[in-house]
């Protein structure tokens, strides 16, 4: 459980995080979405007790991070890609943390195995690919068998296999009753992995809801209908609560009726239908709608500089 209350971080004039309040609950994967510069990484660092908030509090499993007697047991984090010394082997990196945290050596072997990097455990990290470094980062986060897992951009640099691995792993961690909080700028990945979404822009909370509700909020489903007798069909479908728009000849965009009803009515009138597609707004659409004004760096601003 992560509880963030009125959290703020300012660097001189610049506000990175402004009055953020949200709760990340155990048992589901919670996504942390926002454009670059929205304050996601800063928030995660404050949760981990690494950056000091200007004001507000961040509690993990009921306490401030620094108050935990066995912090790695409570929270495991992957905060930035490659926070690893290139001259050290993967096993030495994990062993030093295990020793410090009082964890048995068996945990080192367990997380190496979990991350699928046992074969390269005795190689220097400097020779690792981005994906292997990321796997070692995840192994580092899980070394204390933590109740809460915080992952900043975990799929960055991973190949499709690795992306699938992260997706399966984070879901399993959540299913085991852990709190899983991950940020990503890859919407499609987030839509498939996260059940709950916390969306921020310019350091402020924009949305805190289930992923399904977030997408729904951006506009419900519509049905795309292609027919040679589109105009006649429009007359048949028009009713209260139904809107039919047409972008091009022979193509209709229908809201307020489901595809089955449209198909049945067309058949009853003997009108041929060449296409009948349910169109769901994507997480991208929802995100772009919400953050249109919140993006830190906009192309038009860039051009006027």
């Amino acid at each position, binding site marked *: 459980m992560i509880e963030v209350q009125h959290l703020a971080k300012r660097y001189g004039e610049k506000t990175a995080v402004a009055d953020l309040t949200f709760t990340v609950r155990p048992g589901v994967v919670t996504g942390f979405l926002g454009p670059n510069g929205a304050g996601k990484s800063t928030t995660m660092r404050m949760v981990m007790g690494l950056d000091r908030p200007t004001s507000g509090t961040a509690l993990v499993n009921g306490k401030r991070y620094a108050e935990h007697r066995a912090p790695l047991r409570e929270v495991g984090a992957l905060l930035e890609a490659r926070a690893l010394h290139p*001259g050290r082997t993967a096993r030495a990196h994990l062993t030093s943390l295990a020793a410090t945290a009082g964890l048995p050596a068996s945990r080192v072997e367990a997380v190496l195995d979990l991350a699928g990097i046992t074969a390269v455990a005795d190689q220097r990290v400097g020779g690792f690919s981005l994906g292997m470094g990321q796997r070692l980062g995840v192994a580092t986060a899980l070394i204390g068998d933590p109740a809460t897992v915080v992952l900043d951009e975990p799929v960055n640099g991973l190949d499709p296999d690795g992306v699938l691995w992260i997706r399966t792993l984070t879901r399993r961690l959540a299913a085991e009753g852990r709190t899983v909080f991950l940020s990503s700028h890859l919407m499609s990945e987030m839509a498939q992995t996260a059940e709950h979404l916390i969306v921020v822009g310019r350091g402020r909370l924009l949305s805190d809801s289930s992923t399904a509700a977030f997408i729904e909020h951006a506009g419900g489903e519509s049905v795309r209908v292609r027919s040679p007798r589109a105009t006649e069909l429009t007359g048949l479908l028009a009713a209260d609560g139904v809107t039919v728009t047409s972008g091009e000849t022979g193509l209709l965009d229908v809201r307020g009726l489901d595809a089955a009803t449209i198909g049945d009515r067309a058949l009853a009138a003997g009108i041929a239908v060449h296409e009948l597609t349910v169109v769901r707004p994507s997480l991208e659409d929802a995100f772009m709608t919400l953050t249109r004004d919140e993006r830190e760096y906009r192309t038009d601003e860039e051009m006027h500089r």
Partner: protein
Amino acid sequence: MTAVLDTPARTVPQTNGGVGGLLRGEWVKLRSLRSTWVALAIGLVLMVLLGWLFTGTAESGGPGGDGGGPPGLSFTDPVGLSLAGYRLAQLAIGVLGVLLVTGEYATGTIRSTFAAVPRRWPVVVAKAAVFSAVVFLASLVAGGASFLVGQASLGDLGVGLGADGVVRALLGLALYLTAIGLFGMALGWLLRSTAGAISTLFGLVFLLPILGQLLPASWGPDVVRLLPGEAGAQVFSVVPVADALGPWSGLAVLIGYLVVGFAAATVLLHRRDA
């Protein structure tokens, strides 16, 4: 693979590894980097070789001989002559002290470290303790080797281990090199940047003593003898040097620098974001 996380939660201890765990963790970090052993070997082997060179060439007019040589190297000080290579060794060890800290900042591993030890200051203490133990032992061995090689090379002019002040000089040299290593570490914690900390270390320990000789004679020596390197080095000098502090007061001044440096670093460590 699945068993790892499917095991019921709370299979591992509820507290951190304590002092022992902290020291073990820092020891693993120290020994797992090649740079640790390279820096130690370069510094200490050079010290022995330079001592051998200085003592071997003294009779033919080299350092300490009739032909002159750098000030401070005297034929009449066989112990000092054989240990004079410390000037290079201290830089290698000081740089190593810097790197052990700034390396964590440069690579970002400092975040894993502080995530494991959110109180932070125990990390400073444990790193210093482990590094001190390693440098002290290695310096004791290398200092002993420099002494033995140097005295053998001086032949009849050499002195034995039993001579006045020799044991104090060898222990003192190991203490001195350890303190300079710690000084590098303190600079690393304060400045967090490799380039900045190494430059400062070179300036204070290597350059300022030389530049200090250009200061007016009325107060220049008073400044120079209080510099960390010049003050600390008295702990292993057998033949008293004019204008310098005594052995133990010299070491006390160097330790004073360390206390101030580490105190400032620890205060900043808790104020700054990691």
